[in-house]
């Protein structure tokens, strides 16, 4: 009798233990990202293995482009429906400042590297905000049509401004960020002085004057898919866009396009968790983040898209493309061969000057 009771008790405990654990976390979560090939890479590398491991139902939203506005609206309406949101670093900083994203302590909430290095050291300088867990390093750089540039393909950023050697249209993003830096660089400003010059009224005039020299040959883009489409059409000779898009145009779609890595601008993309989630959903979101940003998972993502993992410890694990079987390392923006001359998006500078320079840029565009 006593023995039977004991067995029953043990059996109930054994049954209840995992259930109690699961009850602490929500069993459904909404993950927000950018859509397209990028979302696919995350689903393959993070969400599918995570769902398999935990049995949680994952709903994928593709609203990252409106993330800041939507999170503000959700906060005002008191109804936050997103659990984990993929945003660029600049948006994460804004959300963090406004109190719309949760602060995360890397050492407490993130996995250490396999060799025991703490998460904080593993991510290093890329932890640019208290709320932001970096995931990938991407770059904004140029692609050109190999069949439209003659015998000497462009190799320097200033070739973009050289209408004589490379006549034809070029695609540039419809915002001052990156374009102003490139213009100054090609107007004789030394790389280390670019932001000192851009701070001044004259410096901004100088950059716009340089852009003026090619203004008639520019097609302005606003969505990441525009430049690949324009390149495939042969509508432009060269154009800036995210390096992963160009990888897809070149390797997956087989278009006559090649990369111009000179003066590429690095930027970060990563996760935030919205502030104000219930305890269960917060626990689920943190658990997902812990899983999705460990060393192996970040390296896995590079099998599907050519963005560099944000952890130092992931870089050596980057392997081959899942379908094409080509080595991904030479296609990473962070590869030594590609990153001889790079910028890192200057978050502080653009936080301070963005509104001002934006207004001038838009006025210049309308002229």
């Amino acid at each position, binding site marked *: 009798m006593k023995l039977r009771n004991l067995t029953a008790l043990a059996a109930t405990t054994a049954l209840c233990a995992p259930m109690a654990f699961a009850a602490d976390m929500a069993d459904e979560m*909404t993950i*927000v990202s*950018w*859509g*397209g*090939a*990028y979302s696919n890479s995350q689903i393959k590398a993070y969400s599918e293995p995570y769902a398999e491991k935990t049995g949680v139902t994952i*709903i*994928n*939203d*593709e*609203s990252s*482009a409106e993330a800041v506005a939507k999170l503000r*609206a*959700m906060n*005002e*309406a*008191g*109804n936050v*429906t997103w659990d984990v949101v993929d945003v660029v670093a600049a948006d994460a900083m804004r959300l963090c400042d406004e109190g719309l994203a949760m602060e995360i302590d890397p050492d407490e909430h993130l996995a250490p590297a396999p060799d025991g290095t703490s998460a904080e050291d593993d991510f290093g300088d890329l932890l640019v905000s208290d709320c932001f867990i970096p995931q990938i390093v991407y770059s904004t750089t140029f692609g050109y049509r190999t069949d439209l540039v003659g015998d000497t393909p462009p190799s320097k950023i200033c070739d973009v401004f050289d209408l004589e050697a490379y006549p034809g249209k070029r695609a540039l993003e419809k915002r001052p960020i990156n374009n102003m830096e490139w213009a100054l660089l090609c107007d004789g400003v030394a790389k280390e002085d670019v932001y000192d010059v851009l701070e001044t009224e004259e410096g901004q005039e100088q950059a716009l004057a340089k852009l003026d020299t090619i203004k008639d040959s520019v097609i302005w883009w606003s*969505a*990441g*898919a*525009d430049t*690949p*489409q324009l390149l*495939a*059409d042969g509508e432009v000779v060269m154009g800036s866009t995210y390096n992963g898009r160009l990888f897809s145009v070149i390797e997956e*779609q087989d278009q006559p396009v090649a990369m111009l890595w000179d003066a590429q601008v690095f930027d970060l993309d990563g996760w935030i968790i919205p502030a104000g989630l219930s305890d269960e959903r917060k626990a689920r979101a943190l658990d997902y983040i812990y899983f999705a940003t460990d060393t192996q998972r970040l390296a896995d993502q590079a099998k599907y898209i050519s963005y560099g993992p944000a952890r130092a410890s992931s870089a050596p694990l980057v392997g081959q493309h899942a379908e094409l079987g080509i080595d991904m390392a030479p296609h990473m923006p962070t590869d030594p061969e590609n990153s001889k001359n790079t910028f890192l998006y200057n978050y502080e500078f653009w936080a301070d000057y963005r509104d001002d320079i934006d207004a001038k840029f838009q006025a210049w565009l309308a002229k």
Partner: protein
Amino acid sequence: MALTPVQHQTPAFTAAVAAGAGALFGLFVGTAQGSGILGLIVGAIVLGAMGFVLTGMISQAKPIRWAILGIFAVLGFLVGGMPAMVLGALFGWFTGWFIFWIATSSYRKRLPPYLTPGQVLWHFSFRVICGAIFVFLITPILVVMPLSFNAENFFTFTPEMLRFDPAGYSLKHYRDFLSNDGWQQALWNSLRIAPMATILSVGFGTLAAIGLSQPHVPFRRAIMAILISPMIVPLIISAAGMYFFYSRIGLQGTYMGVVLAHAALGIPFVIITVTATLVGFDHSLTRAAANMGAGPVTTFFRVQMPLILPGVISGGLFAFITSFDEVVVVLFVGSAGQKTLPWQMFIGLREQISPTILAVATILVGISICLLTTVELLRRRSERLRGMSPS
């Protein structure tokens, strides 16, 4: 059959008219190639000269027309290969026909003799304007259809497509639509939301229209204006308002929330079409039914409903299309679980310009054509039943 006896025109007149047509063609071709003005001038000169010369050779019209067709086809082939040759031949055929049509005054033959030259000019200008409106409305829709059979993943007419090489075409974007989870979920959501929203709009809209057509209802106009307002207020404002309201009462991000929002958008269409059919409804019929002992419900279903059915159905179809095509409200009121087809297309256009969107667009255009044809047939039937001749 000639209504009016005609004479051949002077070379100057033919040249002037042909130059005008040439300028119009030249403007389009020139703009597409980079210089509208240049195209306009070249087009006017070429056709003007042809008009001047050919007016004297009307007796050999037939061989000359073939020659023009051939010359333009060859020119086209030299400029741009196969596709340009087809366009050149078409252009040559039209030019030859047009010049002799003017030169022999054939255009005047079928018109009554009493028209002044101004009236003749207007007669043809009117047709050209109507044709141009059709072209500008429909070409953008037609252009996407061949692109949806593109073998590449871009919105581009590839050289293979222009050569009519079968290798340039494929059904892979249709396959992608039918096999991709994201698209299938979106299609399924649209098919779940639109009929439900339609049923609600038709139910409420029909009742409202019948109620508002009773003369004794107070504040009829004010109520009507409020019910119609979702059609007039900018959609983005309704959407933002619904978002905050539905968030507070827990409907935001739910299936029911999207259905209710779409029903609100569909109701005005039902009210308007049903009100219009009720105008022709004879109310003595309901009184006659009541006189014979039928209650209001029986009267409605046995007498009134069958007569206003065409209005109800066409209103319902508009409500269905509204819900099926709607993107703004669902972006606010829905969450990722209620992602509809237009939502998926919107995201797809922004993030990844994939021809799958064109494949879906082509399918949706097909569905819309079917639905509108049904509406038109119903309208004709209703007019026939009421003794009017379909116009």
